[in-house]
Structures are given as structure tokens and as C-alpha cells.
């Protein structure tokens, strides 16, 4: 990956030139070597399945290169030798059963030969049985939710959101090394363990993909799909949502941190402690300032992508909250939309994603931010009472 800043990267980019590129391309293709700046091949595999896919692709690449060269050597010979301008007279043959049978049967045999490794790699890829650890991955517009179902971290559950600052995307700041491929909280898994991933989605179809693991599975709302990987090497592996899921489809990366078993156990314990500490008293009475401060964080993480930090939205698809009828109307209506969403629009139901306190905080924030100075205070208990209605 290019580790340079945006400006340097841009300057370097034009340097190699086309001849250089072609030479580099041919050399790298022939030697199978990966060039860091001009990546020409699949990412370096870190699971057994990904390695099989890598080799299967290499095999196929050779097969198609040989076929291509074979066919177009004949064409090139014709073009050079059988030219009218060189006085070549046309033959008149137009059928030959032997040849025609041969070029039907030989490709069929080649295909059958390829089918064997292709089948066994696939069978391996789909075998999700006997996992050491199961994690549920939920796609949201536009972030990932991770929930550990088994193992040391069972019960741990959090959201993983793009952490690249807005200024970098808008070209107001130099781009970082992992521009668009970094998140606030990556998925953490132990090295060498078979991790089964269950995917689903909250709103539209997403796709959870990590090229280094050869994992790419749709997350379909209302259904569960599964896939698996056993990472062989510690490190950070990055992928992206691979199914168009709306406006910020390009901005919901997948980051997986593969750590040693000890580290993983320590991480799991820490997460569980934090979870216990964060468990809040649902009957606590909050002040307006506390709620607004917390609400702003919740808003930035969950609402600002569409409704914007300024509350102005992106009308008409993503309406403004600043001065909106709902944000300035009765509390119940406002809470209802946040909890249950609005069908037929991009407004998701946040009831399942956010705690009572978070919903109370964000709605309080929305009713007091910008020009919506209503002075309303909504307590978690009110949210709890409304749920399920």
C-alpha cells in the first residue's frame, strides 16, 4: 500500500510512464511478483482458502494467456502472410469436420481438467462446520455491526464505523496511509482459529469482504448467510463493502485485526469489563447538558451521514432536521421515527441499534441543536416506555 501523503502520491503517480508500466506489467505477470505501487495481482493470501484461490487464479491466467497467444499467433500469421497487398490468393475451403470436432473436444477437455481444482477449492471455501468462534456481522447504511456469539468475547457487541476524517475525503487535508480503509473499532479475532461469520443486514443488501481471506458474502436483510476464515498470520486486514448499498457505499470499510490468542483473551476480558461498566441505570435522570453532550456524539456517529452535521440534510432524499416539523413537533412522533424508522425511505429503525439512553440523548440533542431551541429533555425511561408501541 502506498504510504505517502496524497500530494506525493500524485506526483509519483505520473512518473513511470506507459513503457515503464508495460514492462513492469509484463515482468510482474511473468514472475508472479507483486509490485507495491502498481499492484497487479490478488492480495497476498493469509488463509489456506485464499491461497488456493490465488493459485487457481494463477493457473487460469496461464491457461487463458496460452490460449490467447495460440489463437492470435495464427491471426498474426494470417495478417502478415495472407495479405492481398502481398498478392496472396484466397483459398476457398469452408468446412473441415476433423478440425471442427477437434476444437470442440479439446476445449471441453481443458475445461474438465480445470473443473477439478475449481470444485475442490469451492467445496473447501463453503465448509463452515466446526468453527472455534462465531461472530454475527450486520450491515447498516453505512457501517458494520459486530456481535460475538461464542468464545471468550461472547456477548461483546459494537459498531465499526469509517474513521477517515471528512476533511481528507473533501481534499481539505492530506490523505492518511489507510485512507478510506480505517475504522474506529476493527473486528478482533485470534490467529489460527476457525472463525465463522454470520452475515445479515438491517436495511439493504451489503457485502462483507476481506480479500486477504478470500471472504466475500452478501449481508441480506432478513436472512442469515455464513462464511469462514482461519487467518494464519497476525496483522490488520482491510476490505470494503462489496454490494452497492446507497450513498456511502464507498465509505464503509471492513477492518479485521488478527491477534495472538493471549492478546485476544485479554481484549475479550477488557471488552466485557467495559460492557459491564457501561451498563447504565435506565432510571437515572439526566440533565439537559449531559444529554446534549452525549447526543451530539450519537448524532455524529449515526445521523450526520445523511442529515449532516449542520442538521440541513440533503433534501429531498435526506430531509433537514433543523427547523423540521418532526424535530420541532411532539416528542412522541420524533421518538417514534427514530425507534421504528420510516418505511419506504432511507430512514432506518434505530431502536435495535441504540440504547434507551442513546436514543433519549440524540433526540434531546436534535430538539436543542441548531435553531431547534425547544429546551426539551427526554429521559431514557420515556424511550423505554415508548418501545414496542
Amino acid at each position: 500500500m502506498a504510504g505517502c501523503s496524497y500530494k506525493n502520491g500524485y506526483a509519483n503517480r505520473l512518473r513511470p510512464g506507459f513503457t515503464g508500466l508495460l514492462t513492469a506489467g509484463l515482468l510482474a505477470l511473468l514472475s508472479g511478483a507483486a509490485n507495491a505501487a502498481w499492484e497487479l495481482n490478488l492480495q497476498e493470501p493469509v488463509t489456506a482458502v485464499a491461497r488456493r484461490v490465488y493459485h487457481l487464479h494463477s493457473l487460469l491466467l496461464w491457461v487463458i494467456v496460452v490460449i490467447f497467444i495460440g489463437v492470435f499467433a495464427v491471426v498474426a500469421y494470417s495478417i502478415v502472410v495472407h495479405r492481398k497487398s502481398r498478392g496472396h490468393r484466397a483459398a476457398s475451403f469452408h468446412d473441415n469436420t476433423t478440425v471442427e470436432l477437434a476444437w470442440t473436444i479439446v476445449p471441453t477437455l481443458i475445461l474438465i481438467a480445470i473443473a477439478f481444482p475449481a470444485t475442490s477449492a469451492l467445496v473447501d471455501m463453503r465448509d463452515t462446520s466446526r468453527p472455534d468462534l462465531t461472530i454475527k456481522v450486520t450491515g447498516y447504511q453505512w457501517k458494520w455491526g459486530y456481535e460475538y456469539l461464542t468464545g471468550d468475547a461472547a456477548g461483546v457487541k459494537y459498531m465499526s464505523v469509517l474513521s477517515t476524517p471528512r476533511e481528507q475525503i473533501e481534499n481539505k487535508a492530506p490523505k492518511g496511509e489507510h485512507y478510506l480503509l480505517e475504522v474506529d473499532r476493527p473486528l478482533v479475532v485470534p490467529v489460527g482459529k476457525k472463525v465463522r461469520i454470520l452475515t445479515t443486514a438491517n436495511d439493504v443488501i451489503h457485502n462483507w469482504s476481506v480479500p486477504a481471506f478470500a471472504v466475500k458474502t452478501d449481508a441480506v436483510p432478513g436472512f442469515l448467510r455464513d462464511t469462514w476464515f482461519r487467518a494464519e498470520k497476525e496483522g490488520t486486514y482491510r476490505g470494503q463493502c462489496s454490494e452497492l448499498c446507497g450513498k456511502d457505499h464507498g465509505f464503509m470499510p471492513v477492518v479485521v485485526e488478527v491477534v495472538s490468542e493471549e492478546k485476544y483473551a485479554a481484549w475479550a476480558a477488557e471488552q466485557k469489563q467495559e460492557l459491564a461498566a457501561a451498563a447504565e441505570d435506565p432510571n437515572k435522570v439526566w440533565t439537559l447538558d449531559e444529554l446534549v453532550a452525549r447526543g451530539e456524539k450519537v448524532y455524529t456517529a449515526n445521523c450526520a451521514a445523511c442529515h449532516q452535521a449542520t442538521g440541513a440534510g440533503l433534501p429531498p432524499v435526506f430531509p433537514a432536521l433543523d427547523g423540521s416539523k418532526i424535530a420541532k413537533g411532539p416528542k412522541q412522533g420524533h421518538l417514534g421515527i427514530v425507534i421504528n424508522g420510516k418505511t419506504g425511505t432511507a430512514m432506518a429503525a434505530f431502536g435495535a441499534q441504540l440504547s434507551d439512553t442513546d436514543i433519549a440523548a440524540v433526540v434531546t440533542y436534535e430538539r436543542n441543536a441548531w435553531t431547534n431551541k425547544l429546551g426539551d429533555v427526554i429521559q431514557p425511561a420515556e424511550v423505554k416506555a415508548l418501545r414496542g408501541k
Partner: protein
Amino acid sequence: MQATSHAGYAGNHDHDSHGHPTGWKRWVTTTNHKDIGTMYLWFSFAMFLVGGAMSLILRAELFAPGLQYVSPEFYNQMLTLHALIMVFGAIMPAFVGFANWMIPMMIGASDMAFARMNNWSFWLLPPAAILLSASIFVPGGAPGTGWTLYPPLSIQMGMGMDMAIFAVHILGMSSIMGSINIVTTILNLRTPGMTLMKMPLFCWTWLVTAFLLIASMPILAGAVTMLLTDRHFGTSFFSAAGGGDPVLFQHIFWFFGHPEVYIIALPAFGVVSHVIPAFSRKPLFGYASMVYAIAAIGLISFFVWAHHMYVTGIPLTGQLYFMYATMLIAVPTGVKVFNWVTTMWRGSLSFETPMLFALGFLVLFTIGGLTGLVLAMTAVDIQLQDTYYVVAHFHYVMVAGALFSAYAGLYFWLPKWTGHMYNEGLGKLHFWLSMIFFNIAFFPQHFLGLAGMPRRIPDYAQQFADFNVISSIGAFGFGFSQLLVLVVVIQAVKGGAKAPSRPWDGAHGLEWTVPSPAPYHTFEDPPVFNQAEAHG
């Protein structure tokens, strides 16, 4: 024979020119296959420019990482409209235009079987194009779902989605009527002596294509109608909450969508099967096996749809079946390529613009076909699904396959249509610019896809920056090179060297027995068909 038929329609031409309207009324009311073919071709070129401009918006945004020119939601709208307009507005009407112009002249018919319906088939297209394009300006904008219109994302869209749905309905009606017309014309109006197995190959490809259209367009219409009722009338075909399944849409869509690939590719094969023999001065090799290959491809195209859905969670057995079925398509496709290559072998080759485009087609389509073989392998496809590798693959098949062969046909038949030879120098320049810039634009996308760059994203990580710059430069070069063809065509329409009735010495077929430009009415009496004009 030539002399008698000349005399025949020269008289009729005089007689007829009293009757038909002139000016704009001629074009609105025409039932003449040549007028309608011309309108299809101009319409498709206009749409090609619109769709092309949209792709340049995409490539401009992708020139560098970061968001520069457009918002992500507008980017999504552009990529959706680019695809819908190119597939339904540019490529399909272009080949229907060729079919209208050439099929009656190739089989010795005076016109299409249903001349009035033919007029309606064409005039349904502009309203559909207006609906599609105007969706940009309604609240919420055009659909931002990709041309595949997958729910639930398409359920979230604004009224632009409904406009696209109605546009698809109208386009579907147009295609179905056009196809019924073509099937009827080919099966009933061939001149005496032209048996099916002596019919020009272009007619064969269109016969199979028309059946594919008749079978697949209603399926697309059904799928989008279900979307419409899910959006507005409370049904839940594609919503799990109501007992439906979003993946059901994908099955229905691709059951249409894969035959659609061959709806675009088969007529292209037909054109190339005329151009290569003409400029090799040698009959097409393996005519019968070509016909069987076309039929086989058409048939198998209905049984491979889920190879577009390897990552949706279809069961292992399903993945295996679709992988094997997809690999099978490589066999008849290979037969076609080998036949074209052998047609050239020991021919007497010359390289006028149509032949250059046909050769360009052969090289690039083969690359697209071979990467298709890579993608057929489920395990590899899972790595490459939804990456730029797929974008590169289908542009090699669609642009290089369909567009290049459409250009081959255009330059091949332009003298017959206009009565003038086109500017060969400009034609060759057009070819070389297209060929070079196309590869600069799309070849690097294979590398981007292998390295893991997803498609349909307006912004990307820095390691993808280098190839994206190259790709954008190529796209702009390719886009602007296409304006050359407009110059060439306008020049040829206005004047130029007089074209003889058979401007290409190696070309065979009834269409070359009529004068250039082809008179308004041809073959009012069925011509005599002899072996010399058989097999294109």
C-alpha cells in the same frame, strides 16, 4: 438477375415517391424499414453520446482519490443511468437498426413483415429515453441502484425509480414487438430458394436474438412490476419482513439479465461473420457449426443466470451447477472464434476500416471471453465479484464486442446506405484511437479488480490511485475519439466518392445486388437467389 431487379424497383420507386409524406411527417409516419433503421441508428448514437458523457463524469470523479466534482449519490445515479442508457438506449437499438436496414435486403424481402408495428416499435423509444433521462431532475434524482435495480435499495429510491420502471416497461414492449417482427420476417419473407441453412448469418443471429428477447423481456417487466408494487402497493415480494426475499429479485433479474448479454453479443457475432469473410475474400468457415453455436449459446444463456450471484449465499450445489454450466458456454463461443480465425487463414486479406473494427472485436472480445472463463470459477469469482475486474470484463465484452462490431457494420454498410464511400483515412484513425484508448481505459481495471478495488464507489484508497489515473485518461481519449464517427457519417451522407452497388469485392449477399444508395423500395418482387450470394 441483377438487371431485372433493377428495372423492377426503378419503376416502383417513381410510382411510390408521389405517395409518401416529406419533411418531419415522413419520419413520424414512415413504415419503411430503411427509414426506421436509420432512425434507430441515429437514436442509438444520440443515446451513446448521452451515456458516454455520463461515464466521463464517473471517470472524472475517479481521476484522483477524494471527492472532487460530484456527490456520492449523484455518482450512483450516473453509473445507473450510464448502464441503462448504454444497454437499452444505445447498443440494443443500434443492432435493431442494422436488423431493420439489412434483414429485408439480405433475405430479398420488400420490407419487414409488420411495417406499421415497426414504426411503433421505434417511436416507443424516445418516450422511454425521456423518462430515463428526466429522472435526474425529479426530487430524489435518478435511481442510484446500479442497472440491476436490486431491492431493498431500489425500494428506498425516489420517484426517479418509478420513471425508470416505466421506461423499462416501454423499452420491453418495443423490443418484444421488434422481435416478433424480425422472427416473422425471417421465417416468412425469405426469397424462394433461401432455405434457413442458406440464410446469411446475420439473420441467423437475429433470429436467435429475437427469441431470446421474446422470452426474457417479459421476465424483466415482471421483476420491475413487482418492484413497483412493493414500492407503492404494500406487497412484499422482496421484503423478508412480509415473507418475501430480496434475493428472489436477483434470480428473476438475472434470468433476464444473462440472456440479455447474448441479446447484445449475438447480432455483433452476425455482423463480424459478414465482415471477416468479405475482407478475407473467402467464404465463412464452418457456416453450419456457426449456426449450431449461436443456437447453443442462446439456449445455454438461460441456464447460467446465478453465476452473477455467487456471493448471495446460494447453496454449494447451486454454485457448482452454475459454474459447470457457465464453463460450457466457452465451448460454442470458442467454436465461433476459431471459425473466424480459420476464415482469415489463407484468405486474401485487406484492412479497410470495417475489417479493422472486426479484428479489434476479435481480439478484445476474446480477452473479455477469457476473463469470463476466469470469472466462471466460483472460488475465483468470489474474490473478483463486484470489483473492477468485472467492470473490465464486461466492457471488453460489451464495448469491444458490441460497439466495435457495430462500427464494423456501420463502415461496411455505410456505402450501401448513403451511396457514398466514407473517408477511409478518418475511419482508420477512428479505429486506432478507439483501440488504443479503449485498452488504456479498461486494461488497468483488471489490475484494480485483482487488488480488490470495489466497483460503484466514487472514492477509493490510495493504492488504487495510479491505475485509476491511466484509466480515466483512456476513457476521455476513447470518449472524444467517438466524435470522429459523427464526422465520417455526416461526410458520407453529404457526398463523397460514388459507391458502386458492391463496394467490397469480397462481399456476397442479396444486399449487394441492389444499387447504392439502396432505393427507397427494394425487392418488391422476390429476387432470384443463387449459390454465389449465399453464406454472406
